[in-house]
């Protein structure tokens, strides 16, 4: 079974040379730590920066340079700043190659819910609705089950949707899965996790074909 860093490490393998990538808050943010150093990648943050670098050294924090999680950051050579409308022109206009974000629920048809629990928690969708509605290549990073042990990979989402039929790939603490026309398809198992455990933790339709390889991290 993977921890959050393990999920990020597996997703980092999906980041290819020449990609512009938008990382969501939470596990997705960790992906930047595991991307191969021999490839060229630029990270976009929807509040208006392309070419995000690591956190600043202590004493060098600049309140005017933050990421979408409101964390102080630095920029790398080749970076640029822009306004919010232009930022979403990059996203809506499909200039960003890969979007990685978290989710509360994903359905077997690719629907995603991650912004609201009616009556309990309303933080807002931020840029997630724009991202999922436009991105061609969306990977969801999340735990396979919630704290109560219930599956987050469902037949149908129970929470208010963020987007419809948009998720392509999911990396959880248990597995890598793809969304196909016929539900979830199991691609890889996390180290030490059996197909049976994944089947039990998946409420939505799950297709298991042949031998399922263990993830290489």
């Amino acid at each position, binding site marked *: 079974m993977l921890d959050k860093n393990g999920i990020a490490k597996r997703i980092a393998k999906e980041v290819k040379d020449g990609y512009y990538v938008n990382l969501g808050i939470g596990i997705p943010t960790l992906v930047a730590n595991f991307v191969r150093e021999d490839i060229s990648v630029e990270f976009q943050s929807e509040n208006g920066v392309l070419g995000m670098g690591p956190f*600043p050294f202590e004493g060098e924090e600049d309140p005017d340079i933050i990421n979408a999680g409101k964390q102080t950051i630095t920029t790398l050579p080749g970076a640029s700043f822009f306004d919010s409308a232009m930022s979403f022109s990059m996203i809506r206009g499909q200039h960003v190659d890969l979007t990685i974000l978290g989710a509360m629920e994903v359905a077997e048809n690719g629907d995603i819910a991650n912004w609201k629990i009616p009556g309990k928690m309303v933080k807002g969708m931020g840029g997630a609705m*724009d991202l999922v*509605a436009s991105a061609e290549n969306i990977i969801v990073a999340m735990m396979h089950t919630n704290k109560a042990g219930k599956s987050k990979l469902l037949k149908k989402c129970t929470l208010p949707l963020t987007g419809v039929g948009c998720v392509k790939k999911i990396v959880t603490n248990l597995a890598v899965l793809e969304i196909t026309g016929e539900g979830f398809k199991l691609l890889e198992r996390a180290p030490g996790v059996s197909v049976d455990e994944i089947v039990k933790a998946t409420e939505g339709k799950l297709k298991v074909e042949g031998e399922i390889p263990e993830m290489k991290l």
Partner: protein
Amino acid sequence: MIKKTVSGVEEALIGVENGMTFMLGGFGLSGIPEKAIAHLVKLGVNDITCISNNAGVDDFGLGLLLQNKQIKKMISSYVGENDEFERQMLSGELDVELTPQGTLAEKCRAAQAGFPAFYTPAGYGTEVAEGKETREFDGKMYVLEPAFKADFSFVKAWKGDEAGNLIFKGTARNFNPCMCGAAKITVAEVEELLPAGSLDPNEIHIPGIFVQRIFQGENYEKRIEQRTVRQRA
């Protein structure tokens, strides 16, 4: 040169009234019009509608207006990090229109650019699209979103000149440029106000035509919401 300078925040906010709609720049606490917000608190205008990506934190930014219950309605994309906001929203005291971030930016830009509405894929099939016109283009579904209408835009820039030209810094730029000229009156507060001719016309982010009033604010607090650092090797 058409001069846009006013004496300070008091003169800049003349005409502000109860029940008005305001646009306020900023992302989190970065690039917020600190001086305009502080003066709105002082003036005590109420029943206002605020269009702003976030709602500040409990004791800073728009959180100050929320604490005073001056805000009737918020139009935002993300309102975490603010307990008072969540409390007022869940109790029904505050009307909240959550809007996808890119749509929020474009509704500002559309108002600035003279478009009455636009189609976006964001929110299609979700509760954001409920009651809105949808249309298919090339096999994909889109939602019709109208431009915002506002009485005042309050923006914060790094440098400005007497002609109202503005230059922003870093990610403090965010929604500020999109809101210039998107309301009946745009008020720009800057850290450094310079004589006309001091700024290179090539470097201007927002031309003064979009700004009606400009003033220099003193002692910006620029609070950091999430201070993240790395260790020196």
